[in-house]
């Protein structure tokens, strides 16, 4: 990867509001043409980081580089970066076309250029026939597209999106995910997307940074984040998961085995293999576990079905392990003839190959 392919380089960014530290030294690089997501719970600092990039907040320490140039204390109107606001902030006293043209006018584009670009960009977001409307006359989804069009029109180097889908209802949100991703691909603009919705992050992003308490916990592709979380926080935040306490045994062939206190043992994997005999957390996603007859169980994980919840596409079981913790198991609902288990049934658990992963913390 060459230097020029890095769109945004955040170096040890710190933001304090008085005594409150909103961002405690975040570093990350966002590549050119990338759909990059900042994911985390409320108050984790993701919006603060976005606002630092946009220039709405002044950075306390550290620096942010845009294509190798320090943004410093440049005000937002001097940064070739545009934002799609959470509640869109469409100017209510202007038409859709005027909203879209606003940025280009400020940049001093010629009238002809502005007109051509406005038409083109409104076509892109499928709003060509609503150019003369006022924002108040549009539906939520249409307003969302105008906000997107307005931010993309002046050809920003980077587009920032602050939870732009959160105000839409579920169906529309799902449709917009696909559309947003498509627009990003077609235009090749670098997107920095902020969300607290992990499903949104997983479906759209090229890479995700998971944040918590003002720090970046992990950066990786959706698959890495989901399947190989670096720590307990990431594992818990992304999807449902079972975390078990175990002692790790290192075999002769460097194969790792987890031993639970109740005697169960099964093979596991780790990105950084720990010492023999080390204590560790083992992560197993519920959908990577399956229920098998007790007799056919080779992991030693046996127990009683405590709970069975019908979820439509899935059936979720809560299993109380013998002398051990409760675990969640998710079985796909493959049809009426699927084997179902009832509360009180004794069962064994099978683990899909490679599904048990050690956490480093």
């Amino acid at each position: 990867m060459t230097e020029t392919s890095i769109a945004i380089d955040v170096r040890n960014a710190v933001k304090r509001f008085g005594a409150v530290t909103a961002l405690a030294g975040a570093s990350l690089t966002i590549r050119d043409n990338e759909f990059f997501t900042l994911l985390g719970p409320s108050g984790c600092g993701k919006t603060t980081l976005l606002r630092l990039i946009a220039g709405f907040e002044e950075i306390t320490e550290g620096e942010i580089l845009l294509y190798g140039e320090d943004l410093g204390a440049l005000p937002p109107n001097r940064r070739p970066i545009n934002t799609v606001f959470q509640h869109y902030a469409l100017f209510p006293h202007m038409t859709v076309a005027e909203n879209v043209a606003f940025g280009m006018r400020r940049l001093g584009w010629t009238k002809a250029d502005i007109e051509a670009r406005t038409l083109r960009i409104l076509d892109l977001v499928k709003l060509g026939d609503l150019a003369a409307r006022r924002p108040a006359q549009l539906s939520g989804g249409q307003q969302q597209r105008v906000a997107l069009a307005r931010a993309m029109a002046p050809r920003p180097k980077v587009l920032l999106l602050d939870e732009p889908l959160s105000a839409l209802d579920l169906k529309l949100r799902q449709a917009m995910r696909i559309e947003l991703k498509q627009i990003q691909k077609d235009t090749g603009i670098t997107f920095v997307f902020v969300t607290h919705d992990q499903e949104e992050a997983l479906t759209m992003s090229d890479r995700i940074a998971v944040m918590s308490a003002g720090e970046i916990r992990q950066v990786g592709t959706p698959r890495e984040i989901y399947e190989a979380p670096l720590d307990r926080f990431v594992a818990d935040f992304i999807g449902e998961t079972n975390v078990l306490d175990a002692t790790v045994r290192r075999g002769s062939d460097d194969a790792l085995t987890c031993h639970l206190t109740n005697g169960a043992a099964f093979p596991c994997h780790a990105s950084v293999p720990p010492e023999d005999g080390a204590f560790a957390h083992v992560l197993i996603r519920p959908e990577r576990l399956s229920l098998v007859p007790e007799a056919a169980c080779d992991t030693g994980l046996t127990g009683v079905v405590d709970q069975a919840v019908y979820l439509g596409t899935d059936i979720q079981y809560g299993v109380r392990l013998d002398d051990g913790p409760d675990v969640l198991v998710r079985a796909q609902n493959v049809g009426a003839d699927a084997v179902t288990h009832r509360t009180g049934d004794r069962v064994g658990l099978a683990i899909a190959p490679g599904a048990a992963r050690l956490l480093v913390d």
Partner: protein
Amino acid sequence: MRRRLDIRRYPGFLPVTILCLVVLYAPLLVVMVYSFNDSLSITRWGGFSFRWYMDIFTGPESAKFKDAAWNSLTIALCAATASTTIATAAAVAMVRGGAFRGKALNLALISMPIMVPEIVTAVATLIFFSAIGFTLGYLSILVAHIVFCIPFAYLPIAARLQGIDGSYEEAAQDLYASRFQAFLRVLMPLMAPGILAGFLLAFIISLDDFIITNFIKGAGIETLPTAIFGAVKQGIKPNIMALSTIMLSVSILIVTLSYFISRYGRQGTKAGA
């Protein structure tokens, strides 16, 4: 049956409200009615007539009223314009200036003209003007009016600005508008109903002022209220009732206007609404 179950309802509160409105409106209505009384005596009803309205414009006191009206209107116009401008700047600083030291002090300063009793302001201003040798007259009235109109202009403007989502200016700046352009092209159009309401209220407040004007006007200049007060001292004459009716109609008209402006303006100030 439902009414009796409604726990919010208190018997007797409606009559009190009606009483309240009767007390507020009865004197005004009575004066309005009697201003059309075709009789020299203000007590006896002598039939309907416009003669006292004619009297204001053509009668022996018409020149005095005309001067007073001209002074009142021009002072109100200038004072409202100046105070609205000052108040708009102050509101932007107070509402969009973040937290800063001395913010409470600034707010106290802005609202001081409302806090200090009018008669005290009048005394202080008179003393100050005479101490610095400021000639009492048109200009002294205008300056004093600008001062006490500021908080009245400020309140609706600041309230309006508080209701405008901060992301609008940020969006404007994000789209390459300078701070001044963001104000001029985005914030000010959105604030317009508040600014207009503030202007109208300041205008009425200036038009209505009696106590302060009476103290600092100096000899030889009258505004409508001081002219009316002077006339009333010799007893209430029917032409004063006609003049009062015109003035109160103008006030009611302006307030009604500002009410509908602010009602209309309330729509669409929240982002995404």
